[in-house]
């Protein structure tokens, strides 16, 4: 299987706090990888390092064999290929939902406005948000915001999408609509790395699950292996809090 990312001995500290303590991980094409672990164990930091929103302190991240921290790397181009979906949506509040989806295409991918708008409309349709294309993000519900944010990412034609707890900030009744959209992307075969506490969803969509604890990968394997037959004591403890 072809590797998208190869992460080698990655570490990240915030001042004296060691958050990632040597992560080794490969992420493959056509794979849905889910990361689980208790709050504060470094899941977000790992995703953010992949998108270079944080710079690792040591170790390497290769993207198709290219060192993404190489000074000659075009970071902006790279970031556009690695989509990111945030827990708090982070839509641009000063523009319509359609413009949220268009602005990156025009400025980063150099598409013309007409083409960008056409693609944006398609993607908004994919996530069921076309009716809201002229709305401001501030008028939307959480579920709608997150679906719009996913459309914004999709418009950049990312090769892989990183989702950091995409449903954690939502009211329970809105979780379903966002998971449905993610499931649709999974079926399209878009590679994804998902951080989530939705264990049932993880079990359904993941090819592989990683359990992190205190900045390390403690256990990984198929959903069945990790969720139903965990080998490590830490994993068992963590999972005992969820009814899988």
């Amino acid at each position, binding site marked *: 299987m072809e590797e998208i990312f190869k992460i080698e001995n990655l570490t990240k500290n915030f001042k004296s706090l060691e958050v990632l303590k040597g992560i080794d991980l490969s992420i493959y094409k056509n794979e849905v990888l889910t990361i689980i672990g208790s709050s504060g164990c470094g899941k977000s930091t790992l995703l953010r390092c992949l*998108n*270079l*929103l944080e*710079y690792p302190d040591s170790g390497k991240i290769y993207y198709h064999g290219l060192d993404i*921290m190489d*000074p000659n*790397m075009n*970071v*902006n*181009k*790279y*970031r*556009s290929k690695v*989509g*990111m979906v*945030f827990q*708090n*949506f*982070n*839509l*641009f*509040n*000063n*523009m319509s939902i359609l413009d949220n989806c268009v*602005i*990156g295409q025009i*400025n*980063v991918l150099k598409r013309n406005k007409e083409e960008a708008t056409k693609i944006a409309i398609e993607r908004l349709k994919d996530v069921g948000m076309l009716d809201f294309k002229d709305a401001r993000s501030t008028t939307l519900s959480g579920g709608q915001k997150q679906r719009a*944010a996913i459309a*914004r*990412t999709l418009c*950049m034609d990312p090769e892989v999408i990183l989702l950091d707890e995409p449903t954690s900030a939502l009211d329970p009744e809105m979780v379903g609509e966002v998971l449905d959209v993610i499931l649709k992307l999974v079926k399209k075969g878009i590679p994804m790395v998902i951080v989530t506490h939705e264990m049932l969803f993880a079990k359904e969509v993941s090819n592989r699950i990683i359990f992190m604890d205190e900045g390390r990968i403690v256990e990984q394997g198929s959903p069945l292996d990790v969720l139903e037959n965990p080998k490590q004591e830490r994993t068992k403890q963590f999972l005992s809090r969820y009814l899988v």
Partner: protein
Amino acid sequence: MKIDFSILINIFNRNISLFIHGIKITCLFAIVGTVGGLILGLLLGGIRALKVEKNDRGISKFFKVIGLAFTRFYIWVFRGTPMMVQAIFLYYFLKPVFHWNSFTAGLIIISINTAAYMAEIVRSGIQSIDNGQFEACRSIGLTFFQSLRYVILPQAIKNSFPSIGNQLIVNIKDSSMLNVLSVTELFFQTSSIAGSNYRYIETYLIAAIIYLLLTSLASAILNAIERKMNGGKKVKTSMEFS
């Protein structure tokens, strides 16, 4: 300690064209200074918001560090010295280079002075926007300056509009300092008139009333713009006279 209002009206009538000229020049300096200061301030404030990142190449790290140091120095100097001193110093210091007259020099000096205040207003406006939107910009590949231009600054300017507008009111008053360059703004005109009629109290009271009318008018206009920007809703912020 007595003010004779008939004399006051008389002075105003006799010198009306001089006062009107002064009002025009004062308004011109206040508006140009505020707009010019805002444009320069956006640039300085944008640079002030830069963060040196770990993977910056040597050259861009170098420019960032220089840019940050320069803006910090600029703001320190122009906010820490009186505009009157800046005006005289820069006018004479740069005259051999620019061969400028005092009018042009005054317009430029009030702009670069205002820019120092605007830079800080813009910077705190930028900081008031939650970092998530900036990260979302970067995550789709927008550059730092594209993120500022399309997403952060439009919101920052809107949020700090009251402070930006307040600079217009400050400039209506502070343009009076440019009288040291013999710019014929309202204060300069007033002192010329008073210098020939020796009625200091009445003449300067006229100037005070005119300044008060100008700042009140500006304040009303700014409030109207702000209300419009907020979609017609009534806003609680009123212009501060500082």
